[in-house]
């Protein structure tokens, strides 16, 4: 009889052990209601030398019925000597685990851009829970004001800032998007300059506008691109297919909506004195708005006029980049990449770039006048 009990003891012990273990949760185990999600991170620069960084976190507070009450946001702010110390202090201010898994927008204040960019983005690159596909932008007047803005169109559970950048929400040719991984690449690599969208908030914090961009160059001051330049940058970088061309001629005034476009460029340095960048632009679209009666038999003429306008616009922007010494499209990188390495290709390019002439070859084909006759 005694033996039988002993025989049963082992499986019994195992079962009890499994049951007990099952109800213990490990350290990786943290329930979702014990976490609080950081949706966006803002970094501003304070004037003080001791605590130069001001870190703002936008947190989503989930509620039981999202449909009725919507998601509420709360903010944590801390000034510190480095971003990580700021976040360590912020952790002590919440009752839940800060989860950066959904922190998909990182906004820098304009002042921060004057610092060493490598140093600032280092924190975001090292943390494993901040995803490399986060979007990076510049906040105006400050990162904090952008984070704290709650546009009226913002719906429950969907963060407005995300909708600006992912292509699920708005699709606009004005919005320049920059992923964290791409931003890092542009910061580290020579021959291509980082470009960031500018997020602008109104005074009452009810509106966010993303229509401009900033090109950062480690040697020089950041240069802001206006709406038109940002659109043309998007076109040239193949970021956006859509593009509106405003054609202004003596007798013809119309706007063309481009829906597909393809841009390629080629660097020709056969002559060291007169290097050429050839850019081919192919676009297809329709006339969207015109102040004269359009005639579908004249589509060919309209196309030619459009091509000319595009050529002029693009050349203007390219020349502006050249004059400012900016290279957000990566001409330098292309030059380095397509030539045998001799360790001084970038120096060569820096000499060549100011001498470059641009040959833009635009070919717009209009499919329709947009009206049925």
């Amino acid at each position: 009889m005694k033996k039988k009990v002993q025989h049963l003891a082992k499986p019994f012990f195992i079962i009890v052990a499994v049951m007990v273990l099952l109800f213990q949760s490990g350290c990786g185990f943290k329930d979702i209601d014990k976490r609080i999600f950081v949706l966006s991170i803002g970094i501003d620069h304070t004037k003080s030398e001791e605590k130069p960084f001001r870190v703002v976190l936008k947190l989503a507070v989930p509620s039981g019925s999202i449909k009725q009450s919507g998601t509420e946001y709360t903010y944590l702010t801390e000034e510190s000597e480095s971003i990580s110390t700021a976040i360590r202090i912020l952790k002590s201010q919440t009752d839940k685990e800060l989860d950066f898994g959904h922190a998909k927008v990182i906004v820098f204040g304009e002042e921060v851009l004057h610092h060493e960019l490598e140093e600032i983005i280092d924190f975001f690159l090292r943390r494993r829970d901040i995803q490399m596909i986060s979007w990076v932008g510049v906040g105006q007047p400050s990162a904090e004001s952008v984070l704290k803005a709650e546009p009226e169109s913002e719906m429950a559970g969907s963060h407005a800032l995300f909708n600006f950048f992912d292509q699920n929400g708005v699709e606009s040719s004005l919005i320049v998007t920059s992923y964290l991984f791409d931003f890092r690449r542009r910061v580290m690599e020579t021959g291509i300059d980082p470009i960031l969208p500018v997020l602008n908030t109104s005074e009452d914090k009810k509106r966010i506008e993303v229509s401009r961009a900033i090109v950062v160059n480690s040697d020089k001051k950041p240069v802001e691109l206006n709406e038109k330049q940002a659109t043309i940058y998007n076109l040239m970088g193949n970021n956006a297919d859509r593009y509106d061309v405003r054609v202004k001629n003596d007798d013809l005034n119309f706007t063309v909506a481009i829906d597909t476009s393809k841009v390629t460029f080629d660097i020709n340095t056969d002559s060291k004195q007169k290097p050429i960048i050839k850019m081919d632009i192919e676009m297809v679209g329709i006339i969207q708005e015109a102040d004269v009666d359009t005639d579908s038999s004249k589509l060919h003429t309209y196309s030619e006029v459009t091509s000319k306008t595009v050529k002029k616009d693009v050349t203007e922007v390219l020349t502006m980049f050249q004059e400012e010494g900016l290279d957000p499209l990566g001409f330098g990188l292309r030059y380095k990449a397509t030539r045998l390495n001799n360790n001084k290709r970038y120096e060569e390019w820096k000499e060549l770039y100011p001498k470059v002439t641009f040959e833009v070859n635009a070919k717009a084909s209009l499919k329709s006048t947009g009206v049925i006759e």
Partner: protein
Amino acid sequence: MLFKNRKPNVEEELEWLINELKPSSDILHKPLRLEDKQIELVYIKSVVDGAQLQQIVIKPFFELASEQHVEAYLKSLPNQQDVTSKEQVLLELTKGSVVVRLKDELLLFDIKKVNTDTVRETNIEPTIIGPQYALSEDIGTNLNLIRQRYHKPSLTVETVEVGKKSQQSLAIIYDMEYVGEKVLKQIKSKIESLDQPVIQSSTQLQRFLNGRKRSMVPTMMMTERTDRVVYNLASGKVILLLDGSPTTIIAPAVFWDFMTSMEDNYGLYWVTKFSKFLRYLGLFTSLILPGLYVAATSFNPEVFRVELALSIAGSRIGVPYPSFVEVLFMLIFMELLTEASIRLPKAVTGTATTVGGLILGTAATEAALASNIIIIIVGAVAISTFVIPINEMSFAIRLVRYLLLFAATVAGLAGLALGLIGILMYLVSRDSFGQPYLKLFFEKKKAETATRVKPS
């Protein structure tokens, strides 16, 4: 085969038979005599069809002129059986045969009364199109049903007895032309080495033939559909048919067989492809969804969209226990519900589902014992489990699900992935009578079948 050479033994044999069966009250020993004609009948009343006995044996006996006529008549009857030994005669008697002593001979006639030969409608694997009748519980009727669907001279039916005590007949059916010889040999030797006193259901037989004491997935397929039986006969498989069981077993069976419905052969190409896709989708949902929920809520909430994360977080407000306890709680209740609806009489099943499904589900969320999302998940899991066409496989999947849930509880999404790999490894390691269990079929069906053709 008749007892011609052992004339003096006939009296003894008969005596022995009666003695063996003696204590039973339903044993009948009836001598018939008219003028110079004389026969003796021995049979068990309860298994013999009395009316038929009267019709084919007793009545002609009194009508025929002489004993020669009676002998000639009896020996011409189609339901006469061979007599090999007295033990065999005894066994046949218990099955419903009648022993007739004619002069110095014992003749054996099969005049069974079978009450289980009604052919039932398909119950376990119903389909919309295709045959609607399944099998009966009588082996003779079942053999008839199969033979009627498969007219081929090479169709072979071998009968053996299984169960040391119950001595049930088991038919091994195969198409001589296509059957895999190795498989057949293996099955036969396994059946011979069976050592069970009573085998009552073909599924039970399957467990004994399995070879492994503990097994998670079925390696033989149970079916009640005659069209599936014929389909598998034609592709060279072996069918086992146990007397008294309305289902057959098909061997060998690979994993994909269990995901096939017979309707796949009858419907339109794209329609059946779609329903097949749905079935595999159901398989995966029912497998991974509980584990995925635990992994996504407690380990890796960043994997899914932020909206989903927030809504899960919102619906978990006030839930006192960690996610895996919540999932386990709801899953167990769902299983209890399924289990209950199988066992309950049909009239009460409706109540069980209403009380269990509706009231329990709503109340659990109202009381904040479970989140809304988990109710959706448990519902989805329950439905998708039922999509798997073969019952045994869906029961197996029900079990495997908990292993994945455990893996996800321990290590999140990584654990879930590892658990899936582990299950894959287990499936790959299994085989069904020499056929790899997770075999991928690259060739056309014809080529796969043709490899089994015997050289003869």
